[in-house]
């Protein structure tokens, strides 16, 4: 297993480089030299050259072949990688603040939104999926399936706009916007759950039903176990692997926050920060969030694999 973990940990390197390469290409190569934007329209060529030199924008993009081989990596992308690996995320061009400080400030608000949303969504979805599976082919099951499909077919934007208008603005049940206390999180969490639970219920229901037709369930029934005991003691345990996959892979996204909900409800988290950075072409922020997101994603996948061995002793990691 150690060899497997080391191998998977090493895979962080090409995956992160690949993701960063795409981001770098989109924002730096296509987007143009940021020195022009930073210096502003009135800038002199000397000022642009000064900023380019300071930030390394005057270097070749990928390899410095002019100074081959001694300084071949003295180029923009290798320099970016080198900074990120040292967790030196630089200074945001839009806010002039250290990006590491911005990440620190945005981390907790994102978790305040995403953790309750994630937990409620998971518990509710598994519970409803078990209910649907237990009452499969009855009106309860059909209602749950129809509601789930309906729920997942409606765009999150519609939920946000309707809820903000009716629940917050007209009926004043919730604050429209803000991050002043737990009551400000109720509506965005509620919207997040309603928008997301449908898809999760359908996914988990399928898993439960798949398990319920397994031989061990037939055996349990033959042994005279009751439906509920089979469902909770056996089916749920065996359905844990796909549930776990779904759960652990989602964990990195708790960190990155919810782009839409944070933006509409004014939660100063990383999702909102990323949206703003995209609009402003704030490369430093985007490279940092991409870098951290890629690493977390790979680590979450590794954690999933390790968790498999815990959930199912038959699984061996090689």
């Amino acid at each position, binding site marked *: 297993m150690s060899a497997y973990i080391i191998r998977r940990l090493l895979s962080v390197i090409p995956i992160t480089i690949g993701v960063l390469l795409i981001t770098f290409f989109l924002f730096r190569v296509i987007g143009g030299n940021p020195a*022009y934007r930073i210096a502003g329209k009135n800038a002199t060529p000397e000022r642009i050259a000064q900023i380019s030199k300071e930030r390394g924008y005057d270097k070749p993009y990928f390899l410095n072949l002019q100074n081959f081989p001694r300084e071949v990596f003295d180029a923009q992308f290798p320099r970016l990688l080198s900074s990120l690996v040292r967790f030196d995320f630089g200074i945001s061009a839009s806010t*002039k603040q250290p990006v590491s400080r911005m990440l620190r400030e945005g981390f907790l608000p994102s978790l305040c939104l995403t953790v309750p949303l994630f937990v409620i969504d998971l518990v509710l979805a598994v519970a409803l999926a078990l209910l649907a599976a237990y009452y499969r082919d009855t009106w309860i099951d059909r209602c749950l399936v129809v509601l789930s499909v309906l729920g997942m077919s409606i765009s999150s934007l519609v939920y946000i706009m309707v809820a903000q208008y009716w629940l917050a603005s007209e009926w004043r049940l919730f604050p429209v916007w803000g991050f002043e206390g737990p009551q400000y999180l109720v509506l965005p969490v509620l919207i997040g759950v309603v928008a997301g639970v449908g898809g999760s219920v359908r996914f988990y229901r399928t898993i439960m039903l798949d398990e319920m037709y397994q031989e061990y369930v037939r055996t349990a029934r033959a042994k005279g176990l009751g439906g509920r005991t089979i469902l909770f003691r056996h089916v749920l345990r065996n359905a844990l692997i796909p549930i776990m996959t779904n759960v652990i892979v989602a964990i990195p996204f708790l960190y990155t926050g919810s782009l839409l909900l944070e933006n509409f409800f004014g939660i100063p988290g990383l999702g909102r920060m990323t949206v703003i950075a995209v609009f402003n072409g704030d490369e430093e922020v985007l490279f940092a969030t991409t870098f951290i997101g890629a690493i977390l994603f790979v680590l979450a996948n590794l954690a999933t694999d390790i968790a498999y061995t815990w959930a199912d002793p038959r699984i061996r990691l090689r």
Partner: protein
Amino acid sequence: MNLRFASAASLLAAFLWLAGVASAESILHGVGGDFKGFDPVDSGDVESADQISRVYEGLVEYHYLDRPYHVIPRLAAALPEIAPDGLTYTFRIRRGVRFPDDPCFPGGKGRELTAQDFVDSFQRVLDPRLQSQGDWIFVNHVRGAKAWVEHLNQNPSATTNAPVFDGFIATDRYTLEIRLAQPYPQLLWVLTMPYAFVVPREAVEYYGKDFRNHPVGTGPYRLVKWRRNYRIEFERNPFFSGQTYPTSGEAGDREAGLLADAGRPLPLLDRIIEYDIREFYTTWQMFLGGQLFSSGVNKDYFEKVITPELGLTPALTARGIQLIKAPSLSTYYIGFNMLDPVVGQSTDPAVNDRHRKLRQAFAAAIDVKKYCEVLTNNRNTPANSLLPPGVAGYTDAPYPYAFNRERAKQLLAEAGYPAGKDAKGNPLRLTMIMPGAGSTDARQAADFYVEQLRAIGVELEVQQLTFAEYLRRQHEGETQTFFAGWVIDYPDAQNFLQLFYGPNKCPGVNSSNYQNPEFDRLYEKIVSMNDSPERTAIYEQMVQLVIADTPWALMTYPLGYGLFQPWFKNYKHHAFPYANWKYYNVSPH
């Protein structure tokens, strides 16, 4: 820095910016955006300028109510004495103005403002190591500034305050001299800009790189709490004094209730709390809920808010909401690169004439009125001059190349492209760049221009670029035509006319690379002239010269629409709203 295209959009947004009031009458909520912290050297964007001007202030400022715009002393005791040759401005600094208490000062006790503080602050704007976008306000005008900047460029480790040049001198504790290389009648205008606001040297040194997060100013408010991307809170600066609400304004101000607070000590509000709301839908819900004092009118909401007669809908009128429409002093245009072999100027008079007719045909081909109606809900009006209305030198003479498709076709034929084909029968293809890659508004505008040019037989390719790439292409002169806008920095046509001065060609502000010796001669004459009927006449003459040569196809003047709650008081549109928060008030509600 000049608030040009990038800032044009955000300046409009600033007018559309939002705020609101909580239960207590003097607590105000508002909405901002990204800004670069509280360092006046970084006040080039509208949002930064707005935030900075709550905390810091300068020698002079605009009168809030009077029009035409003029400056009044603020931290100066009076307007400066100007030497007969126009090369020395002497300011007496107001006595008794104090920086607030702050740990940066010995014992944490603030101290009195002195003339030396201005010397230090102005030198920071010029310091190339700080990369201020505002160095243009001094660098070519103040005596010795260029050499001093060059000295710092070559000796980056030199201390900022090294006595290398004497352009800014504190002759005594309360007297500041600004010595110029040549007359600079615009000096008082640029001194109103946040770049020229005064900061204490102690704070710069004490906070170092974090100075931008710790404002220590003499302004009407002080920062209480700031959570980036979310909320910022200011309270009345207890050390602010010496200013009252104006007792006079222009005709109609009294009737509009704008003098109800005349003579009251400023600022009128105790507290400003501003939220950073980026979604217009959220903003609109909060405005309707009475939580925000103001809202803009988003394009998508326009028809719900504004009637076809461009008034407020009855439902909003019944709620007492006030609609204020105000033009920003800016002009949008399509520029031609005059060095381009197809559309540019030529030393051959016959070729030059044909190319000029091609540019004129381009201008006449675009139905700007339709553009305003269809794409902007008439939130823009067709431009008829380089200068926007309200700036000396503007005349209401009709634009000679306003939309006229038949005339455009005729001019195109005279340019050597009958029906859009050259002598060999090849179609005329032109390229235009514009910023706003990925923006729906930019794409719609691009489609519109393509269709308008196609109607006279010209194939126009529009490239939507990121702002950085757009600036690079303009800077390097890699354009044929380009969509752009210019927001005036101060109410003097010189600020617009510099865009056509030959020596300012790329990478300077003359992005069209326009060359006209007669224009240059007149420009060199007016740059040192004070405001006078003679100067205005020359401005008009220069405008006509440019319009005839058509380095720009004139497009629009933007018109801002702002909505205000009935309880919000003292709002008067100001084209240079650097120091206006202290005048705002709310009535009990």
